[in-house]
Structure formats: structure tokens, C-alpha cells
């Protein structure tokens, strides 16, 4: 209760603004949402006031929760670990709808036309499509890669043409499902490699990349010429050396294409791999403090912000994309789980789970601009995601 108050007070002004949405018209471009991992709550936040303006509970198990936005950037769809799918109205600060869609979900995506929300599930492995308006189930694609064998699904991303691309951890394939007819998706399969653990689509929607855990390399599918199949890039980046243990799987989602290059976490090496984003040849690598988890490009592509797996999860490093060097090392707090840039990148919000706070930095001079108390914060999601491919 005390924490809720603490959280709410600084945001009172913003709250007033939002609460009056009925009478005074308001946009959502500077709003967002922070997952409170432990408590099953979300904090609604405002990046202009740098504050939280509301807190909503009853969302179930939110470990590993992720969020996508409706195309009008008013509604957030929160995918919970327990299979809960909750649609939140940012303006009225309330739950609009909530359904239980599966036993074990790890994320979701929204179609190019904004009409279909898709959840990716570990068990039962596969994807499920819902009407974005009503959350009514439209169709599902079980990840049955061999008779009777179902795979965990990872790396779900929306791609142009109302399609979704995703990878099968156990099946070693990339699948692309076309939802032109939302009730009858058509799926094409592409062999990818051993144990894809996550995926991303480039900002232009052209390439889908699946990081591989079971081998050194990344599977790349050109969605403009899918008939050519997936090929491997950055092969053997480990040079046969023994891998370091990976205490948390990296996340690829998030634009990591900047300055004409793709910046990707290595697996089992404390490095960020750099590849030319047209030839996909390795152009370098950057030594960092630990196993990278998120490798995120700022909106202008000038900086790459990196956080790390346990036990190096108190650090954040910043790479300058022009020099390819680490230019800043920060300690935002204990157990840094996620980072999110404001829409045009003048600031970055960083969640420090074990310090119960979100810390805000100026991206130009790395000054601390402020912090917001949030219970065990994990993912931070701003509405600017609504207009981006692959978010």
C-alpha cells in the first residue's frame, strides 16, 4: 500500500490529465507501461513527466511478460507467463479485457493491419491468433514439427503481409504463418539450425534472424525471397573455443540494426557481434562485461545499450556505433532486466529489479535524470512500439 502511494504521488499530475481524458482530449504518444514482475501488476508511466500515473493489478504471473500496442497506441496487450492475455486501456487506466489463452506463454505480437494479436506458447507449443478488438480466438498453429512432437516457440515477430515469423526451439526451424485469412493461416517451414532461442525482424521487415543456442551462428531468412531458404551467418563465431556458461538467455527482440550494421549478442562469449546489414558478413566484435542479454540500438542508431546475464546483471554498457567502442559503463542498480528508449531517444529507462526502481538516463551525457519506485520492475514498453515492425 505504502509503495503504491509512493508510486502514485509523483504521477498525480499525469494521473489528473489522464483521468480527465473523457473531458479533455489526450494523446498516448508519451505513455507506456512497466511490468512489476513479482506482484502481477503493471505501472502506467508518462515519459514527459517521468512518472507513474496509475497501477493496475490482477494480471497473474508476469515473469517474462511482454507487451505490444494497438495501432492507435491506446491499448496495451500484456502477455503473461501463465497464459493470461490482458488488454489495458492506457487512457482510462483500466483493464479492458482479459482471457486465459494457454498454459505457458512467453510473448506475443500484433499484425501489420493491427487486427490480429498472436501469442507464442511453450506448452502446448505453438501460436494462437486472437481478434485484437474482442480477444476472441481466431485460429492456432500447433508447432508440431514431427508427428506427435511439439516444439517450444520463440522469437515471434510480425512481418509485412499480415504474416508472423517465429522459430521452433526443439524443431530447429523458422516458420512463417500468413494470416491473410485470420481463421485459416498458411504456414511455410524453413530449416534453421540447432536450438533457435529467439528471433528478430530487421526494422524494414525484410530479414528475420534466429539466434542459435546449439551451434555458433545465426539463421537468416530473407522475407523478400523466402524461397531461397534460411542461411547461416556469423558461423563459427566461437572459433572452437569453449563456451562460457549462459545464466540467462539473450533476447533479440528490439531493433539492433544501427549505422548499417546488426549488433547481436554472442552466446557463451562476452561479446557483441557486429555484421554488415546488407552482406551479413562479420565486420567486428566488441568485448563487453558479461553475457549480453539485450543489445538495443537507440532510435537514431548512434548508440547500442547492452545489459547482461547473472552475475553481471548490475552493469549496463554503451557502445558508440561510429567508433565501435564501449564509451560508457553504468551501474543503474541490482538486477537490470530491461531498457527502453523514449520515442526519439533523448532518454533511456532502465529497470533494476532488486532495487525496486526504474532509473532514467540522459543518452547524451549519461546523467541520471530521475528514478521511479516500481515493485521488482522487468519489461518497460512505450507506445512508440505501436508503429514499429517487429515490436
Amino acid at each position, binding site marked *: 500500500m505504502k509503495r503504491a502511494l509512493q508510486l502514485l504521488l509523483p504521477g498525480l499530475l499525469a494521473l489528473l490529465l489522464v483521468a480527465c481524458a473523457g473531458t479533455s482530449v489526450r494523446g498516448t504518444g508519451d505513455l507506456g507501461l512497466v511490468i512489476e514482475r513479482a506482484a502481477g501488476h503493471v505501472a502506467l508511466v508518462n515519459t514527459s513527466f517521468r512518472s507513474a500515473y496509475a497501477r493496475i493489478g490482477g494480471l497473474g504471473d508476469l515473469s517474462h511478460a511482454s507487451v505490444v500496442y494497438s495501432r492507435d497506441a491506446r491499448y496495451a496487450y500484456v502477455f503473461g507467463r501463465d497464459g493470461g492475455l490482458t488488454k489495458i486501456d492506457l487512457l482510462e487506466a483500466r483493464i479492458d479485457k482479459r482471457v486465459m489463452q494457454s498454459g505457458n506463454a512467453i510473448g506475443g505480437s500484433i499484425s501489420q493491419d493491427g487486427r490480429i494479436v498472436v501469442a507464442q506458447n511453450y506448452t502446448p507449443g505453438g501460436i494462437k491468433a486472437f481478434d485484437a478488438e474482442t480477444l476472441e480466438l481466431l485460429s492456432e498453429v500447433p508447432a508440431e514439427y514431427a508427428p506427435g512432437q511439439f516444439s517450444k516457440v520463440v522469437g515471434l515477430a510480425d512481418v509485412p503481409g499480415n504474416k508472423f515469423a517465429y522459430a521452433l526451439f526443439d524443431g530447429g526451424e523458422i516458420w512463417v504463418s500468413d494470416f491473410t485469412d485470420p481463421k485459416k493461416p498458411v504456414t511455410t517451414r524453413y530449416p534453421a539450425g540447432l536450438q533457435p532461442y529467439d528471433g528478430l525482424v530487421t526494422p524494414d521487415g525484410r530479414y528475420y534472424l534466429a539466434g542459435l*543456442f546449439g551451434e555458433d551462428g545465426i539463421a537468416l531468412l530473407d522475407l523478400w525471397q523466402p524461397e531461397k531458404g534460411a542461411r547461416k551467418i556469423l558461423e563459427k563465431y566461437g572459433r572452437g573455443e569453449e563456451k562460457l556458461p549462459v545464466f540467462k538467455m539473450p533476447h533479440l527482440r528490439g531493433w539492433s540494426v544501427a549505422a548499417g550494421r546488426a549488433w547481436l549478442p554472442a552466446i557463451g562469449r562476452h561479446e557483441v557481434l557486429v555484421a554488415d546489414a546488407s552482406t551479413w558478413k562479420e565486420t567486428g566484435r566488441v568485448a563487453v562485461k558479461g553475457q549480453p542479454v539485450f543489445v538495443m540500438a537507440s532510435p537514431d542508431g548512434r548508440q547500442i545499450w547492452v545489459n547482461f546475464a547473472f552475475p553481471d546483471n548490475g552493469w549496463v554498457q554503451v557502445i558508440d556505433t561510429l567508433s565501435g567502442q564501449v564509451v560508457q559503463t553504468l551501474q543503474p542498480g541490482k538486477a537490470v532486466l530491461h531498457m527502453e528508449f523514449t520515442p526519439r531517444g533523448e532518454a533511456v529507462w532502465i529497470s533494476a*529489479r532488486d532495487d525496486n526502481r526504474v532509473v532514467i538516463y540522459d543518452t547524451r551525457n549519461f546523467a541520471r535524470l530521475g528514478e521511479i519506485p516500481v515493485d521488482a520492475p522487468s519489461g518497460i514498453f512505450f507506445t512508440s512500439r505501436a508503429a514499429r515492425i517487429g515490436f
Partner: protein
Amino acid sequence: MASLLLACPALPAAAEPSAARQKELIHLVRQDCGSCHGMTLQGGLGPALLPATLAGKPAESLVATIIGGRPGTPMPPWHQFVAEDEAQWIVARLMTGFPQ
């Protein structure tokens, strides 16, 4: 014998971690093991670690999995951070219902 001891939470294993350390271990399991096994331990990239799913599995092999990891899978070795008797304590708790 070891597994008998472990199966019975009333009998503390040889070196029970201190109360402060137990708190740290609970946090580690829920939060950091939780990134793969789920914070509620109902499974994720890694399998569920609930009494029902672990029932009948030999405790020593689960302890060995925690200490040494499982090569070829994402399960990493935790020996740098968790001692053998601490892993035994974790397994005993996992098998009977892990504390919050």
C-alpha cells in the same frame, strides 16, 4: 541414504544453510533460475521444477544437474554460486514445494 534424508524435510541435511543464506538461495531460485524455469517454477525454456514433476527423480542426479549443468542443453552449471550442500537444500525444497 542421502536421498532419504533429502526426501524428508524434517531431518535437516548435514549442513543446512544459515537463515540469511536460505533467503539468498530462495531469491536466486525464484528470480534467476526463474528466468528459464518460470518464477512460479511451472516451466519455461527449462522444465517445471514442481514437486509433482520432480517426484520419483533421484535427488542426487538433480543436485548434479544444478552443480554441473547439462551439456548440450541451456541448463548451465551453478557450482560457482551454489555449493553442493546448498544444491541439496534447494532440491529438497523443490521436491516438497519451494518457499515463496
